[in-house]
């Protein structure tokens, strides 16, 4: 099974969000790379985010998860799993 981000708007936003905050590789947000992602990888990333945010761990993009992703928040990554969180300071 594969997950094609461009098919569903909420899913696209979720992929962007999960990549931005360290739950998925940053390459997933590159529009030129044409990355496909397994459904398992997406489910695991959603589960990890749900666990961290104190939500019910369903692995699905349920309403609670989507709403949490819309909350104003800090831009620093929650997880540093894919590469080093090394934005250059100056």
């Amino acid at each position, binding site marked *: 099974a594969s997950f094609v981000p461009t098919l569903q708007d909420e899913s696209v936003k979720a992929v962007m969000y999960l990549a931005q905050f360290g739950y998925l590789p940053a390459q997933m947000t590159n529009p030129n790379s044409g990355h496909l992602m397994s459904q398992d990888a997406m489910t695991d990333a959603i589960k990890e985010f749900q666990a*961290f945010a*104190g939500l019910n761990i369903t692995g699905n993009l349920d309403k609670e998860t989507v709403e949490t992703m819309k909350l104003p*928040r*800090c831009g*620093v990554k929650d997880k540093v799993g894919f590469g080093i969180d090394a*934005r250059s300071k100056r």
Partner: protein
Amino acid sequence: YALQGTRWRVKNLTYKISKYPRNLPKADVDMEISKAFNIWSGITPLTFTKKKSGPVHIEVRFENGEHGDGDPFDGPGGTLAHAFFPVYGGDAHFDDAERWTVNSYRGTNLFQVAAHEFGHSLGLSHSDVRAALMAPFYRGYDPTFELNDDDVDAIQALYGLPKKTNNKPTPTEAPGEEEDAELCNDATVDTLFNSAEGVTYAFKGLHYWKLTEDSIASGYPRLISKSWPGLPGNIDAAFTYKNGRTYFFKGTQYWRYTGKKMDGDYPKQISEGFTGIPNNINAAMVWGGNGKIYFYKGSKFWRYDPTSKPPVKNSYPKDISNWEGVPNDLDAALHYTNGYTYFFKKGSYYRFNDRTFSVDVADPPFPRPAGYWWFGC
């Protein structure tokens, strides 16, 4: 909590605000940023000094969109701010497109977000404890904001406890005879005051003690921040006025409490609430002789009468030497329930007789050790 993995190797850090937001007065920004640093300095050995120019450890900037670090801001909502861990320089950037506010339920509270970001600047990652400051989501303005234990544990895992209380047992966890040791080894206090209910408290560093007639009550010390939510440690002075409100002073700010509940939006500036009184006072009290408030700093004192205009007469400040036998550079002043006025300095105290208007001549003479006579050491 989660630690990023790096921390500052120096304790005395500097910062500057090199780019201010569009929608807040500079003075407000300065104050909120200072407060945000203070919540971390209050529970660690760290200090934060503001500089206006030159190199600093932590640079604070309000930016729009792409701003040079490869992590552009996204306009109102969404990402509010981000900061760099110590290894990457510690800078904190705030999205200038947000509506930054002070003491308001509207917009986004600058103090709370800044406090969070400075946690990153000091080496903390996001916590999965939802009530922690270091949780990644903004939870709205909290007028009684205080750090969660998770935040305290995190930052103290990196930098340890404040110098004065280093290596002491956590009082609420380990009550026992050891608790008195800090006050008995060095009876210097930050302040002493009577509550509206007639209880006398001694404050020192982050802790406080409830005094009994000749000693301290069992179960103390306790953490000031636990009992007076929102109040920092290392208080300069405190008193309870005849309106039943207790006022606490520290640096340029003061807080007002009814009992142990903060009365609305504090801290406020001493210069606003107590016109004519300087910052960084040494001691304060309500004197039984006339019910007026007296502030002490260095070799001077000020008399403050809230019912008069101006509340401080032009003839003030006056020399503390007018109070015969009372030294300069006091730590605390207290009008006690027995009618005497007591002055404290470096672990010793002086009993001032309001009728003779001088320190009593007694045997043993004053000053006497406060540890023995006040704290039951």
